[in-house]
């Protein structure tokens, strides 16, 4: 099992590279002590990923701190300030810059979602997991996953209004 894929997974699920680093370290230290048992599983990497998600959610409960998304300095001056809704994305710059800025802005919105919603969005759209698989990871029902995704997408849609954006029925079960 390699460190970098785990870090990448945690970086996306937490939407916070610093938090991801802490979470992965904690999980690996705990996993190492019982690695023979975990390694004997058919999909040990999935088990460690589940540990990462659980650690992230519990970490958030303990620390109750707000995470931040590091933004490219070039994008910082162009994105809308918190609470200000851009008009269909961003209005300045060329097309490529706009796409980058839209992604940055969207990323910041995702990072501001409640942790469980954030994890659902990451698992659904980055890991391409079905709602059933996400439910198994988060130890909840698929309907709960769908409602979390629904709320998250509604939040994102409100912040980035576009009639075509973020269809609620985007996942699978």
């Amino acid at each position, binding site marked *: *099992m390699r*460190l*970098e894929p785990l*870090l*990448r997974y945690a*970086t*996306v699920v937490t*939407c916070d*590279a*610093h938090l*991801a*680093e802490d979470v*992965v*370290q904690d999980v*690996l*230290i705990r*996993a*190492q*002590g*019982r*690695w*023979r*048992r975990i390694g*004997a*599983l*058919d*999909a040990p990497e*999935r*088990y460690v990923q*589940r540990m990462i998600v659980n650690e992230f959610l519990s970490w958030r409960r303990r620390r109750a701190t707000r995470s931040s*998304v*590091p933004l490219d300095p070039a994008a910082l001056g162009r994105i809308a300030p918190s609470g200000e809704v851009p008009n*269909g*994305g961003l209005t300045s710059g060329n097309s490529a810059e706009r*796409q980058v800025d*839209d*992604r*940055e802005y*969207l*990323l910041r919105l*995702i990072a501001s979602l409640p942790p469980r919603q954030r994890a659902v*969005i*990451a698992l659904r*759209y*980055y890991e391409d997991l079905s709602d059933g*698989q996400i439910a*198994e990871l988060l130890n909840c029902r698929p309907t709960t996953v769908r409602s979390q995704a629904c709320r998250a997408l509604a939040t*994102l849609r409100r912040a*980035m209004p*576009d009639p*075509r*954006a*973020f*269809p609620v029925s*985007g996942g699978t079960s």
Partner: protein
Amino acid sequence: MNTDMIREALDRQADRVPETQRVRRVLAARAAQYARRRRRRQVIAAAMVTAAVPLLWGLVRYQPAGRATSAATTVAVPQRTIPLRYRPAWLPPGVHEATDAMTIAPGASGLSVKRSYTRGTDDPDYVGVPSMTISVFVGDDRLLGVRQQGVSPEPISVNGIPGTYQKGPDDQVMTWLPDSSVTIMLREAGLGLDRTTLLRIARSVMPDAGSRVMPLAVGWWPGHLAEGRAVVSASGQPGVAKIEAGTVSVTVGSDVDRHVPGGGQPLTVGGHPARWVTVAQGDLPLTYLVVVLRPRHLLVVAVNNGFGESTVIGQRDSIRIAESVVIDETWPDWTTNG
């Protein structure tokens, strides 16, 4: 804007992965810190136990096993037994039990036992060796028996108990819960058994009150490691005993160097001839310290420094581990095969 934008945004976030080498260094420091904290807790716990022992002594009598032998010191081997829990009453012709393994991690929430079966003489503990295993997961660990590979489970009945059957590309698994605190997982890979045969084995599984004695103990591990699993050969098989702690395994017995490459640096460990072998497997360095205790009995300290890459265990630590090993001289395989 659509969900593709979310994917693009998350892809962008994935590119912000922390620098791996730096995380690796910090991880090593944190692992050491964690080990120190754990040792402090153990010292406190030991002090509490010391205070409590006079009270308990009349009730509980510690029973060490017989004489022991070691590359460096001779101490009594704390007797550790592997409860076998369940066994199949029927096996296909030619399939025999090879090893029994038990989770021994301190503080483990549950206890799992794995009995391994094979047709040949290769150790089924090694990846790729055709084998069948019966794993019993107890207590909180029972969910470890639930597969997570995304293959849709097919319902089965094992003597009236509902269970599941899953067939993957390389193996097939039957899982059922004989009671509320136990999960049994029967897994077959490479033995060529069909679903009907596997179900017949599953239906023959019955409680087993027997146990196996672990004849091996390791007196010293690097601070960040804790013992995780013990493995001992089944009756009638060449005597092998193994204890695993994280990335390190200590194996004693006859014919245990089949998986160890030849050559290496000659050494002397505890007065015994030994060799030190390093193998680069991809970027995962594997090391083996092979000590010849008796003409047909070897001690192998194997280290996989790949996982987590937090702390590298080198020759010095491997030798120290080997020198702390003690073997119960009353172990029948030790006395008859020596």
